[in-house]
């Protein structure tokens, strides 16, 4: 199995506070890996370190290495914007830009230099189809992205991310603001997307992790407690902490 990301002895700090503690783990290509754990366990920070979005946070620093396709992303990356393009990210809160649905999706490709209207039309249609949103919005592409429902907005954000053709999708609790039906739609979508993309998903929802992920990382207070295939971990967790978390004794 191909590794797309290798994390080696990686630690992260906000100022003096260490939030991710010496983690070593591999992320496999075209699989869904779920990062689970109680609030404040560092799971979001780890996710946000992977596309270096935390660089924008004051006082953030890292130790150790994260390799993407063999390159150390904190040391060997010259063009951060180009790297971020390859590692798409979707947030907890849907964040459509204040513009039309079409322009939301065409936004990234335009920034990265695609000008041809025909090409943009193609990308928009393809991305919206991939995000299972095309049928719902194809007749109103000029409508504002902020006017959609929460679930549609989140799928729009996924389409917007897919439009720049990333290789990895990072999702930070993408369904926590959605109702159960929208959540289910999104879960089906993620499973479908994992055929072509590597997905890394932070979630509070243990059920969701079990339903859709291939691998689970369980983090607790900055440490990686356990990593393995989802079916294995659910059946027979090796660490008592994992078992306690999965059965709801801690959380």
């Amino acid at each position: 199995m191909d590794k797309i990301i290798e994390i080696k002895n990686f630690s992260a700090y906000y100022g003096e506070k260490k939030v991710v503690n010496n983690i070593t783990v591999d992320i496999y290509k075209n699989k869904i890996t779920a990062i689970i754990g109680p609030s404040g366990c560092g799971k979001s920070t780890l996710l946000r370190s992977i596309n270096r979005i935390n660089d924008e946070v004051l006082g953030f620093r890292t130790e150790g290495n994260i390799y993407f396709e063999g390159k150390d992303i904190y040391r060997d990356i010259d063009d951060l914007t180009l790297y971020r393009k390859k590692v798409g990210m979707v947030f907890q809160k849907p964040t459509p830009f204040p513009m039309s649905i079409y322009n939301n999706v065409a936004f990234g490709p335009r920034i990265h230099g695609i000008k041809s209207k025909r090409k943009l039309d193609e990308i928009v249609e393809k991305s919206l189809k991939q995000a299972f949103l095309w049928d719902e919005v194809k007749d109103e592409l000029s409508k504002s992205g902020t006017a959609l429902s929460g679930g549609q907005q989140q799928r729009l954000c996924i389409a917007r991310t897919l439009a720049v053709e990333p290789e990895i999708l990072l999702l930070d609790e993408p369904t926590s603001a959605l109702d159960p039906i929208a959540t289910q739609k999104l879960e089906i979508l993620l499973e479908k997307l994992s055929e072509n993309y590597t997905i890394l998903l932070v979630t509070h929802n243990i059920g969701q992790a079990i339903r859709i992920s291939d691998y689970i990382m369980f983090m607790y207070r900055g440490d990686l407690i356990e990593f393995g295939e989802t079916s294995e971990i659910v059946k027979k967790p090796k660490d008592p902490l994992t078992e306690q978390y999965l059965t709801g004794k801690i959380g």
Partner: protein
Amino acid sequence: MKKDRSISILLRILSYSISSLIFVFLVIVIFDGAKYFSTEFFTSYPTDGMKSGGIFPAILGSFYMILLSLIFSVPLGIITGVFLAEFSENKLSKIIDMSITSLSGIPSIVFGLFGLSLFSITFGFGTSLIAGALTLSLMTLPVISSATAEAIRALPIELKESAYALGLKRNEVIFKVILPAARKRIITASLIGFGRSIGETAPILLTGAVFYSTSLPKNIFSPVMTLPTHIYYLVAAYGESAKWMAKGTASFLMIFVLAIYLITFLVGGRRNG
């Protein structure tokens, strides 16, 4: 419980009396002057020692003055606001923030004197449209820049991060995502600045306005008549015979300002984009 009730009644009485006071004030000012409105009042020059004629040059002068001042204050205010919100870790930004805050506490006559010494005398603009407009824009600058900074800070952090995650550079994030997302509140702030500066008297009294001009301003270095200074001169220098014109002008100015605030309210009312 009983205490809660009496406090709520007290607050209600207070707020009702304050709003009725404002209402009565507006009605008196507007209706007392509106009876002098006529086509001639809006389209002709004052004549006969302000006993007859109209306020056309003052309307036009005020309009030019505000427009010119907004040309300076809006872009500068927006840029300053972006700087304050986006580069807040910067030391310079903290100094600017402090200056902006104190700028908004300075009495308007001090702005007038400052404008007089800097723009009219040092720069040699004399009593002119440009000197008045620059002085006015100094006053509107804090309004626009702090509102812009507030608007940007109020945006969800994820919006910015989504833009970075798509591979945007910092300037692209600011100009293509943040400013468009905050544009409604920035427009509102600019309109409030507009509404506030049209009624300002002291800053332009010394720098841009004359009490009477026989011709319309030819260029930005011409002096102009404006609505608020017109009222001031009429009341201060002419007395009883020109009182009607002062009332009419005040009424028109009031209606104009109210209209601006109404537009501001309508624009700002739908606030999610």
